């Protein structure tokens, strides 16, 4: 039984034109782990997340999700049950009311008519309101999403993930455009929800402090290669300094 290993990454490589984005990267993720991907800009964090989200295909190597190769999750409805994504804003439909953005997490289970009908009379409203309550926005359900602040929009995205209930949450710079207080708030909520729902989180982060504070395991990438892969408390300041060091000019 490989059920403990929710995600296996085997020797994946990805090149853009001549630039190497990822070179034979491998690691294994166990169910319920909170993983932070850190590393300097251009290290391949976003590429890795996009590969896991099947937005990109690897040039070589394979990704195994819950015992099956990721290519077997071609049906986006099945994939949505396994993998959910949250990004740094811009991932909500601004013109829709908040509740519809939250209910969008249920689209994988809804048919055509139910989704259409829901735009006029919101379906499964109770569940959506509960999700909004958990992220602290119960009174904003009928506001236009684009009128919400950046932090509130991220909470709506979290509420949508609560509706979607994926086993793995991929977070691509979830707090990059937020101020420190809001960032703390969102990460706290994200990790708390993941623990409560027994979900696995893989988040790319710019800030090492947040990575150490909220996540259990840090995976550092540099120039498309694994730099270190350690439990959060074992990472030393020296290693971090090495990771973010600029190339010395020769």
């Amino acid at each position, binding site marked *: 039984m490989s059920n403990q290993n929710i995600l296996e990454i085997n020797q994946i490589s990805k090149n853009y034109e001549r630039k190497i984005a990822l070179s034979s990267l491998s690691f294994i993720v166990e169910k319920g782990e909170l993983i932070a991907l850190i590393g300097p800009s251009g290290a391949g964090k976003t590429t890795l997340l996009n590969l896991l989200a099947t937005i990109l295909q690897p040039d070589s190597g394979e990704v195994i999700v819950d015992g099956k190769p990721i290519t077997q999750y071609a049906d986006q409805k099945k*994939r*949505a049950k396994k993998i959910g994504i949250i*990004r740094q804003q*811009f991932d909500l439909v601004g013109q829709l009311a908040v509740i519809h953005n939250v209910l969008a997490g249920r689209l994988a289970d809804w048919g055509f008519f139910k989704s259409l009908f829901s*735009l006029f009379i919101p379906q499964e409203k109770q569940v959506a309101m509960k999700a909004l309550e958990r992220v602290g926005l119960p009174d904003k359900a009928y506001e236009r999403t684009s009128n919400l602040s950046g932090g509130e929009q991220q909470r709506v995205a979290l509420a949508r993930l609560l509706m*979607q209930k994926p086993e793995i949450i991929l977070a691509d710079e979830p707090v990059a455009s937020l101020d420190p207080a809001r960032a703390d708030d969102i990460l706290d909520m994200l990790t708390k929800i993941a623990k409560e729902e027994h979900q696995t989180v893989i988040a790319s982060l710019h800030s090492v402090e947040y990575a150490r504070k909220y996540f259990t395991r840090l995976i550092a990438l540099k120039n498309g290669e694994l730099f270190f892969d350690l439990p959060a408390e074992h990472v030393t300041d020296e290693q971090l300094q090495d990771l973010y060091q600029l190339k010395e000019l020769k």
Partner: protein
Amino acid sequence: MKKRKFTFLTFSFYAFLLLIAASWYFVIGVKNASFLELFSKENVAYASKFFKGLFGVGQEEIAFLNRDSWSYAFTLTIETLQMSIMAIGFSTIVMFLTVIPAARNVADGTLTLSRKWYRWVVFGLIRISYIFSRAIPELVWAMIIIFIFKPGILPGAIALALHNFGILGKLCAEVIEDTDSRPIRNLASAGAGRAQILMYGVLPTVLPQFLTYILYRWEVIMRTTIVVGFVGAGGLGQEFKLSMSFFHYTEITLLLICYLILVIIADFISEKSRFFVK
């Protein structure tokens, strides 16, 4: 780089001056045109006769003071309104049926995240039909349609719809091309299918823009009914042509007043609904 730009600017400036001088020389020197000739005695007489006619000076029957002609003009106004609504209705329906595959980002699959080879074929066909439809002016469409149907407001509406369908299609396809694909990609990763992406991602973002364009074209169609009316497509335009041919100047005044009222109404409606959408 900066210096080259400067020289091009100076060049175009001198070319501009030269063009103005040369064209005036051609108008005055070669063609012997005289500005004062515009105001020759005959021209002034014609103009004053026409304008006096418009205001009904020295005429026995003044249409815009006559109750019967007002009620007749009113029915024509309603007809024109019907024609314009039918025209915008037809073109909007056909536009909605074709606009989604006509967007470049749908054809290459970046918006819906599904790539199919035939999308480009459909895209090309629809875009060609758009170009074809808007390349031919309303007047020509009306002349062709009148040739087939008997004169009336329906052929007028079809002619207007044919021309405006291409314009609306192009404008709205561009709106779809400009939509942010990030929310839509995220809907797809939340498990939304093609139809669901359309309902939750594409339509809410593009509909307000669509409505603005549709209302604007409606306004334009209202004004263009006069042009298609000239070739017998009914409504105020046809009556305008007849009055003009019979030298019934006061009727022309009446019809122009009706047009004015129509355009003001259309203006008011589109203004209000645009406000409502925002």
